[in-house]
């Protein structure tokens, strides 16, 4: 009976669900092997606690409210820093992509600043802001700025000049030309910038929180290290991985929605 049902279902009905599961097979298998290795004593618990222990530690922290609070703090820092750095990067990318004058004025300076690794500024930032929120936001914003700036600029500069000429021939005003031709043309490149920036955002935040913070996931991990709570350390790392994956998925969904015209996103 069930066999007949599944056969009569259109193929494409089942495919996405299977696809969604397939990507989780490997992580789940790793966890299973890990659990077995810990329980049999193959991997000493002092080196790597069993997944069940990590889950237990997570459960305890969840009950105490500490976990949620720290995740929230980190998430908040990441998003605000991303928004600030991203919007400034986007604005500069637009300005320098659209106006020769603006590009001449600022591009060289920005390229010079870009060559300084932003994490090298941590000591300076701590001197400026202490271990205040603004220190973390500043670092994240700075890290996110460049990928978004560079890719927005690149996207706008590489919009097909024939399309721009077409827009002019058909009497588009500057605003309309931007809305209908330049911005949509630059969008794929802007998304590349966003994906890059999301990676840098987490990296910056982890480093900043482990070095200079009194809350957040990185701080939680550092605290746990002091008290030798290795299960909490591993838990923080796993949560970082999950949050990173989540941000990436979110940007993919957004990309799929806005770039549905793109041949790469059709019928898949």
């Amino acid at each position, binding site marked *: 009976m069930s066999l007949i049902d599944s056969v009569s279902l259109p193929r494409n009905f089942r495919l996405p669900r299977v696809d969604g599961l397939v990507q989780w097979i490997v992580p789940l298998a790793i966890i299973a092997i890990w659990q077995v290795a810990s329980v049999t004593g193959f991997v000493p618990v002092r080196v790597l606690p069993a997944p069940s222990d990590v889950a237990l530690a997570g459960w305890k922290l969840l009950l105490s409210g500490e976990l949620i609070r720290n995740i929230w703090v980190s998430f908040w820092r990441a998003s605000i820093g991303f928004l600030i750095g991203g919007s400034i990067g986007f604005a500069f990318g637009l300005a320098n992509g659209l106006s020769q004058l603006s590009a001449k004025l600022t591009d060289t300076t920005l390229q010079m600043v870009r060559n300084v690794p932003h994490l090298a500024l941590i000591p300076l930032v701590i001197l400026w802001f202490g271990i205040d929120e603004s220190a973390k936001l500043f670092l994240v914003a700075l890290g996110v700025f460049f990928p978004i700036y560079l890719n927005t600029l690149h996207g706008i500069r590489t919009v097909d000049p024939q399309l721009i000429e077409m827009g002019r021939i058909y009497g588009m005003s500057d605003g309309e030309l931007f809305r209908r*031709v330049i911005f*949509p043309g630059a969008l794929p490149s802007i998304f590349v910038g966003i994906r890059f920036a999301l990676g840098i955002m987490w990296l910056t935040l982890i480093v900043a929180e482990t070095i200079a913070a009194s809350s957040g996931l990185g701080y939680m991990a550092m605290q746990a290290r002091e008290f030798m709570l290795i299960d909490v350390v591993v838990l923080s790392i796993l949560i970082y991985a999950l949050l990173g994956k989540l941000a990436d998925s979110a940007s993919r969904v957004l990309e799929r929605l806005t770039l549905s015209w793109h041949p790469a996103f059709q019928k898949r």
Partner: protein
Amino acid sequence: MQTALRTSLPETELASRANFAPAARVAREDRQERQVHTSGLPLSIRGLRKSFGDNEVLRGIDLHIPAGQFVAIVGKSGCGKSTLLRLIAGLEKIDAGSISFGDAAIQPEDIRVMFQEPRLLPWARVLSNVEVGLGRDRSSGDAHARAEKALTEVGLVDKRDQWPSVLSGGQKQRVALARALVSRPRVLAFDEPLGALDALTRISMQRLLERVWRDQGFTAILVTHDVAEAVALADRVLVIDEGRVAHDVMVNVARPRERGSAELASLEGSILSHLLSADDRT
């Protein structure tokens, strides 16, 4: 619009009388019938010059095209055909001389160009791509209806909600044609619009071009590499050489024309020999 039409008619009359004097009575009667409801603009070019740096591309083009005429422009590569077209369309600045469109006050929407590449916006559905052609009327209430009508004319109304990327090369070019037609232009300039298409698609596109030209009566200026295409479609073929109109050949063959007929073939031969002799000199 009405006054423009009336003032442009006598001039057309004169020009066509001058041009058509001896041969092809049939063709002339045919076109005069059409001119009653023509919406084309006559085009006069006087002493037109254009250089890029030291490169003197156009060295004094003198040309009159009566309203509604279908003119083909041929010439060897780099002789300035595209430049001439871009000047007519107002995409380049004129160095010297003048281009005028009768006495009528022209709107930007009256003159349209179609290029070898369709230049469709990949992120806009077929229908919105056609709406782009409406120019300043894009936001008017009947924009959808007008775009749909233009799509129907090129036989692609069932693709209205598709992305351009799923269309074939010929279909994309038809959408580009619909976009050029939607504002009811009075001069339509084509820069090798069929250059990138395969032979069969080319022929069906040529038929389509001829049909919309007959239906709408715009003045058509077609730049092409294909002399057979030029004699099959045009009333008149201009050969450009050394920055001037070197030959001005009337194609007085009745429509519908039979492809590969002896008449067209001999015309094609003589135009080709003009082109080749120009080539030998350089």
